[in-house]
């Protein structure tokens, strides 16, 4: 954990970085250092603060506190442009270039070689070819960037950054949409840059890639530094533990197993349901009064699974049976007609309608199911709102308040209320306790247990493994967009889940 901190001086050193957004601490006194020629993995789950840290060090957002030194010299870039000039370049997952311009134009945009004010196209193409050949890329530089694969586009973006005298290169999830071969090409480029003494910050969700290429790992969790170590001192299991953390101190009593003897009715059975490129075909059985938990790292296919279950994405294979009948689920509307409900992970973009009131947000799904022509009367809506505000203790208890003004936990309760109002047979909760305060955590977990007792089937995605083990009857572990294990009964332990998540696939274990 404490390697050579002082000698040689780090290329880039961040100390005490803090950033708050509207009272929420996105970064809390984070330290980070990068040496020349180092490939440094920056890891963490959603909301851990990775993007904020990158934005704060490149001047895209202004930090509240902290110092930034490049080569021992204090710098304070106020925009991405200033950061590039100082020597810190970022290549985002969505390549930030002009897809309709040629490769050469993209490489030299804003700094084209000119003569008498005119762009020297020939000179620019020649230089572009020379630059890309350093990266082993021999392509037609006059073709538009968009005519090339994402991998090539990334390399072009990297070449542009490096050519602008970058000393520090930040790669934000560059491999998310690359296939295995393209990843190898990108890694070759990264190794070459590292040999030249450029420091690389590598953000990814793929642990295999971290162990394949990185020298050092820094993990953020909830805006804080969770740990930092050379890669060979941090085995997979420890890494996963660092990423998912173990903070919940409150007693985690297992819920009593569902009463033996009577087999609970199957609510829905999914057989071989999957979608190419999104999630490998899986089997899933959901029973009344049972909670199935989905565990895995970000990007492992948890959200993808529940979106197929709810019809938000269309499966391209497999069969679904609901209450013994074969059905097809092609849209959320069809899923709702079958008695499904879904609280998505992205509460703000996919859940609440911020400017509508609490009452209207609660009524929305029920109203959608009834159709526009049989409106809930104002009195029915008021009754619905009053019932759920009381039941879920939504605060402030004002049904006419725009839901965007509520806290995260209360917005989550409003979403739960929206679905509970439809009295679903199956409720899907994607990260129901993310981004909400501890008190609301406990309430929502209590609610999940109550719902389960009342015979609702639940499918819950959660990164909070300590919470998951307290209410799940079965835990499906996902890795690399596939369901890899199914745990039940005594197997449901945080340590077992962590070990299963961290298991390296046999084929890669040697590497």
């Amino acid at each position, binding site marked *: 954990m404490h390697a050579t901190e002082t000698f040689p001086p780090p290329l880039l050193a961040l100390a005490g970085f803090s950033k708050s957004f509207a009272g929420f601490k996105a970064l809390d006194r984070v330290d980070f250092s990068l040496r020349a020629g180092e490939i440094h993995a920056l890891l963490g789950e959603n909301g851990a603060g990775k993007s904020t840290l990158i934005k704060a060090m490149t001047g895209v957002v202004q930090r509240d506190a902290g110092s930034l030194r490049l080569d021992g010299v204090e710098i304070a870039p106020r925009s991405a442009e200033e950061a590039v000039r100082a020597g810190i370049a970022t290549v985002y997952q969505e390549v930030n270039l002009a897809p309709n311009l040629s490769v050469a134009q993209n490489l030299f945009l804003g700094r084209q070689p000119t003569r008498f004010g005119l762009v020297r196209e020939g000179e620019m193409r020649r230089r572009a070819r020379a630059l890309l050949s350093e990266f082993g890329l021999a392509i037609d530089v006059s073709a538009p960037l968009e005519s090339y694969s994402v991998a090539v586009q990334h390399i072009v973006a990297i070449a542009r950054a490096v050519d602008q005298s970058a000393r520090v290169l930040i790669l934000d999830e560059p491999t998310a949409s690359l296939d295995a071969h393209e990843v190898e090409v990108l890694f070759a480029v990264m190794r070459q840059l590292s040999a030249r003494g450029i420091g690389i910050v590598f953000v990814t969700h793929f642990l295999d890639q971290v162990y394949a290429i990185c020298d050092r790992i820094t993990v953020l969790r909830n805006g804080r530094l969770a740990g930092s170590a050379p890669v060979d001192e941090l085995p997979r299991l420890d890494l996963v533990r660092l990423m998912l953390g173990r903070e919940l101190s409150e007693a985690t009593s297992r819920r009593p197993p569902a009463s033996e003897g009577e087999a609970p009715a199957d609510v829905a059975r999914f057989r071989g349901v999957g979608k190419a490129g999104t999630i490998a075909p899986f089997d899933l059985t959901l029973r009344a009064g049972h909670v199935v938990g989905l565990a895995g790292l970000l990007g492992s296919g948890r959200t993808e699974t529940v979106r197929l279950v*709810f019809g*938000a994405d269309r499966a391209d294979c497999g069969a679904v049976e609901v209450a013994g009948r074969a059905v097809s689920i092609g849209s*959320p*509307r069809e899923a*709702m007609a079958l008695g499904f409900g*879904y609280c*998505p992970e992205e509460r703000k*973009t*996919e*859940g*609440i*309608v*911020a*400017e*509508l009131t609490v009452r*209207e947000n609660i*009524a*929305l*799904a029920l*109203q*959608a*199911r*009834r*159709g*526009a*022509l*049989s*409106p*809930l009367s104002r009195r029915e809506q008021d009754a619905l709102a009053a019932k759920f505000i009381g039941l879920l203790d939504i605060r402030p208890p004002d049904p006419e308040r725009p839901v*965007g003004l509520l806290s995260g936990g209360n917005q989550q309760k409003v979403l739960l209320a*929206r679905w509970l109002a439809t009295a679903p047979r199956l409720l899907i909760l994607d990260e129901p306790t993310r981004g909400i305060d501890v008190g609301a955590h406990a309430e929502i977990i209590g609610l999940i247990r109550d719902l389960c007792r009342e015979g609702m089937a639940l499918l819950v995605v959660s990164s909070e493994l300590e919470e998951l083990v307290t209410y799940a009857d079965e835990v499906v572990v996902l890795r690399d967009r596939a369901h890899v294990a199914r745990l039940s009964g005594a197997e449901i332990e945080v340590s077992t889940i962590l070990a299963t998540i961290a298991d390296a696939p046999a084929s890669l274990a040697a590497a």
Partner: protein
Amino acid sequence: MAVRLPRIGTAQIVALGLILVANWIVSPQFFDIRVQDGRLFGSLIDVFNRGAPVALLSIGMVLVIAMRGIDLSVGAVMAICGAIAASLADSHSLPVVLAAALGAGLLCGLWNGLLVAVLGIQPIVATLILMVAGRGIAQLITEGRIVTFTSPDLAFLGGGSVLGLPTPVVLTLGMMALTLLLVRGTALGLMIEATGGNPRASALAGIGTRLITVAVYVWSGLCAALAGIVASADILGADANNAGLWLELDAILAVVIGGTSLFGGRFSILLAVVGAFIIQAMNTGILLSGFPPETNLVVKAVVVLTVLLAQSPRLGGHLAGLGVLFSRSKSGGKRR
């Protein structure tokens, strides 16, 4: 916020009142109303009569804008439907004429709706197609001439009166009442506001966002058709080149003045119609004042600027203190 208005809409109604009073100052006979042949006459009545077409357009436009869309084609649709009505007026009975013209408006709206909802074209581009092509279609219908008619039945829709009120005003009020019934009497209004506010969340909550999108463009087409019929009936003819020219911009302006954000979400049909009458009151006032009519465009520009500044999240707070049209300044900052 410095000033808290008691409820939404006060600002618009105050603004309309102020403009009417200003008109009265430049033209003391402004509020004089005469009764002649059982019909009310006077400058005030004129404001409502002249403002009817834009008010009709704004009824459809407000729903489209609430869904985060925009309909640039309504002026051209007016021209098409006006041309159809004028061409058929002397050879067919009124119901046939109306059915043909309204049917054409419905088809135009359906075309826009399908481009937006099914093909996923950006609304501004999708409706630009018909905005440009529509005027050509209208010219084809009138064969490049200004078509005139003499049918008293159709003329009644432009120049007649019902219970003393000019028919265009009655038609506008009727259309507004019908739209309010359809939108607020059902759950459609909630669904439109939810979809405009957050389309992805609304689709996941099971709302048929695609169907509603088509429906609002169809309704906008119908409103434009009615506006086109009124405009043709008023001048006893159809001028494919000039009927409804630039009125789509007035309609959008009316909606914005009425406090509906171009980002979609919350909307008010009533205030959009008030917005249309505010615009017409300005037009009439400038005519009465004896200023050259060109000043009208400058005044309009100032009003647009004021409204947009008031909606801007950064300036809204400052301008609110001035008591200008700002009822939406708060929601202007909702999405940043």
